[in-house]
């Protein structure tokens, strides 16, 4: 018997049950900081500077495989949009969906948290980390939506 096998006379303090913080719905695409903000992750070609989302294994411009993973700018311009009124059971309708052009020259699809009448091609939006349904085990996860940019 070693000391480790001896039951402690006093039960250790049991940590209060805290649900683990929700994680990114797709960690390879959306990185979440401890403060709850997040970034989309993309690839930057070290050879020609082209950016891609999601992460690629080679650059489709110059075919270099010398790519680095970078955080993409979290604000951009709506290229086009729709309001989805029929979807899969995983998504409650209606919701706005758009393609957003980021300054790096990357077009990203995302939901847009805005009323249908407020949507417009060319509107400025920014990335927001938000509750985004559950994972396969039913645990809540975080995803991203674009929100109209607040001009101060």
């Amino acid at each position, binding site marked *: 018997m070693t000391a480790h096998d001896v039951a402690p006379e006093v039960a250790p303090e049991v940590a209060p049950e805290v649900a683990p913080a929700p994680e990114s*719905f*797709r960690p390879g*695409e959306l990185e979440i900081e401890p403060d709850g903000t997040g970034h989309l992750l993309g690839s930057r070609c070290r050879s020609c500077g*082209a950016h*891609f*989302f*999601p992460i*690629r294994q080679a*650059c*489709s*411009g110059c075919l270099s495989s010398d790519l680095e993973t970078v955080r993409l700018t979290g604000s951009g311009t709506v*290229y*086009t*949009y*729709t*309001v*989805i*009124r*029929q*979807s*899969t059971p995983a*998504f409650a309708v209606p*919701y706005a*969906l*758009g*393609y957003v*052009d980021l300054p790096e*020259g*990357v*077009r990203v*699809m*995302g*939901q847009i948290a805005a009323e*249908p009448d407020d949507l417009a*091609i060319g509107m400025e939006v920014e990335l927001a980390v938000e509750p985004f349904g559950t994972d396969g085990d039913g645990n809540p996860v975080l*995803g*991203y939506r674009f929100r109209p940019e607040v001009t101060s």
Partner: protein
Amino acid sequence: MTDVYVLGVGMTQFGKHPDKTAADLGASSLTEAIADAGIDPRLVEAAYCGHVFQGMVTGQRILAQVGLAGLPLSNVENACSSGATAIREASLAIRAGEHDVVAAIGTEHLTNRFAGALTPDKSDPEAAVGATMPGVYAMRARRYMEEFGMTREQLAMVAVKNKQNAAMNPLAHFRKTITVDDVLASRPIADPLNLLDCSPVTDGSATAILVSGDVAERLGNGRAIRLAASTLRTGTVDVEPTSMTFEPLTRDTANDAFERAGVGPGDVDFAEVHDCFSIAEVLRVEGLGLFPQGEYPAAVERGEASLGGRLPVNPSGGLLGKGHPLGGTGVAQVVEVVRQLRGEAGDRQIEGARVGLAHCRGGKAVGIEGAACTVQILVK
């Protein structure tokens, strides 16, 4: 290299077939195509089967039903271009000199696989944020309206035209004509697209029997139609965001086909194009170079793409009217082209047609303009 001909075609009724499987439907169209070719079934040397959601070895289940098990068969999946890809593979096997008679089958039993909006594969990052196929096309429609001033009514006229053609096609899923008001009043799916802007969930199969020039000459009885080109491309990955109102993938796949066939867009007498949504026909027809960019909606309004117009588009009724059994679609387009060129299209017959084109585009993968695009050019 030998020329390739379509000697026989067959197609099931498109619609809902609750009592049949994809293999049942495939066996029916294959049997009809062999009979239409007028050949002994034992002459078929190989087969390709295009389908998307029908599970393992669907093609072999078809051969087992018709007594042709034993042949080399490959199942091919390229989303909505699966059947068209089967035709291309069959044509390559003949051009390579490996076979003289090959069956290209397309089949899909969709009504028992899913309902509602089709989505990209669930592994796709865009599917993960809520992309649906109608949604993606709706976004392209929105952008096209903004750039080219297409009206909502003009977009609806594409669906009205194709349903009108389908009403004359006994094998079409829908045989009821509709009005622009019907389209505008139908249930919203993804703004600005409504239900009648979307192709339906359909079961069906079609088969084409492809043969070498030598076999066409010996057994064709003058009914063989030359498959002058069958091309396939995958979309490129965007280095910079590109226009979503024009389709370089469609243009490039068509240019490959025009070059191979030795004809140009001006030689095309009619076309079957992949109108999975009303806006899709606009984008495709302009990508193919059949109408200048931005001008197709007004041309539809003037009746130029209707039967009797300058360049009929989707005389079969298209995916919107005839129905869209994913794997079956690309082969069914070729069935229509062959029947038109033979003069066997009944009420839909385009008089004097000599060159017909069929275009498919399937699949969505993040970052690329389109997944699989095919163009077939058939010449009388």
